């Protein structure tokens, strides 16, 4: 009897948090218009989530591209087709690794910071103070941050791809001695602007939206204690990463088959 009650309570609690999420999303959408009007707030957040994520994106992109070229060259040289290493590196970066790895780093670097910031605002009753002054915290705090994420992550993904291809070029042409002309020619032959690049960008936009909603919802609904904020931050990173990886499979199966 007791176990059954536990199961019931757990399911009801899940259902309730799902309903809260739905309410949150529906209240955010109209507020996004406000964020467009007061773009100053968004600029500040783009600095926070975008510019400050730039060092980690640049470093990670360079090394991911270099490792891809190194591993690709190792395998492709057994078939004597080292020239394809360029198109292999570029395609993996554009289709999968650019959007996904950038999103994972973004969730860890920016999403967690957003949750902690909003959670702390809640626990120090700044959100309540805003409401007291008749300022809607969804409009003033949440919407600019969501818009900033949706703007910043696609840009970071593009930068990740570009620096990754450059890293692949350094390793393949500079170190392993692949012919430079063949490297770029094969890449241009196989990478399609519309099918590959724009679909990769679309992935980044979807991931940005999911990460933004999760991090701000977790911050907004965090228990207003130091432990609650720390739990919410952990949940943001775990849930965002799992959602990005799961959605990536779904999007890939729709886009590239």
């Amino acid at each position: 009897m007791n176990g059954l009650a536990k199961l019931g309570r757990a399911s009801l609690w899940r259902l309730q948090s799902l309903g809260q999420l739905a309410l949150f999303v529906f209240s955010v959408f109209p507020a996004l218009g406000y964020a467009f009007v007061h773009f100053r707030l968004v600029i500040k957040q783009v600095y926070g989530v975008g510019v400050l994520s730039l060092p980690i994106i640049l470093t990670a992109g360079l090394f991911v591209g270099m490792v891809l070229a190194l591993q690709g060259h190792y395998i492709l040289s057994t078939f004597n087709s080292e020239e394809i290493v360029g198109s292999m590196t570029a395609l993996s970066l554009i289709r999968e690794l650019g959007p996904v790895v950038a999103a994972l780093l973004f969730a860890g670097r920016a999403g967690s910071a957003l949750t902690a910031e909003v959670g702390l605002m809640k626990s120090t009753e700044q959100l309540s103070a805003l409401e007291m002054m008749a300022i809607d915290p969804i409009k003033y705090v949440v919407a600019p941050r969501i818009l900033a994420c949706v703007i910043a992550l696609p840009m970071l993904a593009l930068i990740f791809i570009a620096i990754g291809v450059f890293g692949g070029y350094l390793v393949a042409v500079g170190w392993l001695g692949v012919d430079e002309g063949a490297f770029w020619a094969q890449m241009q032959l196989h990478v399609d602007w519309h099918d590959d690049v724009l679909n990769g960008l679309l992935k980044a936009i979807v991931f940005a939206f999911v990460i933004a909603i999760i991090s701000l919802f977790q911050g907004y609904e965090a228990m207003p204690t130091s432990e609650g904020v720390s739990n919410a931050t952990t949940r943001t990173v775990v849930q965002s990463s799992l959602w990005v990886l799961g959605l990536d499979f779904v999007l890939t199966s729709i886009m590239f088959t």
Partner: protein
Amino acid sequence: MNQQVKFEVWVGLLVLITLISTAFIALKVSNFSETQDRSTYQVDALFSNIGGLTVRAPVKISGVVVGRVTGISIDPVTYRARVQMDIFKEYDDLPTDTSAMILTSGLLGSQYIGLEVGADDELLVEGSRIYFTQSALVLENLIGRLLVSLTEGGSK
């Protein structure tokens, strides 16, 4: 410096880096430059076997790319493979007796369509059909024929 101005300068820098990356991806990594404003006309051809030909494979004359394969289907009347291809408008002076062959780049490379320009006075236009075609070389058939000729040679 004012705080807001500092944010704007840094975000401006981020946008600039993004634009450079996009230009790099468009011009150096992908085929953006060749997909732009090239008007084409469509012709098709029937093959009895297209081998490993795929959509987007190049169409070449003397090794120069003059178009792309845009569609592969089965012709409902003859049950042969119907290959549609877009030829760039600047090559609109191909005679109607031009022949199409499915060729392979390199020993194991991808397959493409090679056009052999004919001598007729009439020209291929939008919707024309190329009647002279040569199918893909299928390795199994080739080896089969080779084996037959070898065994015949041995029994002599």
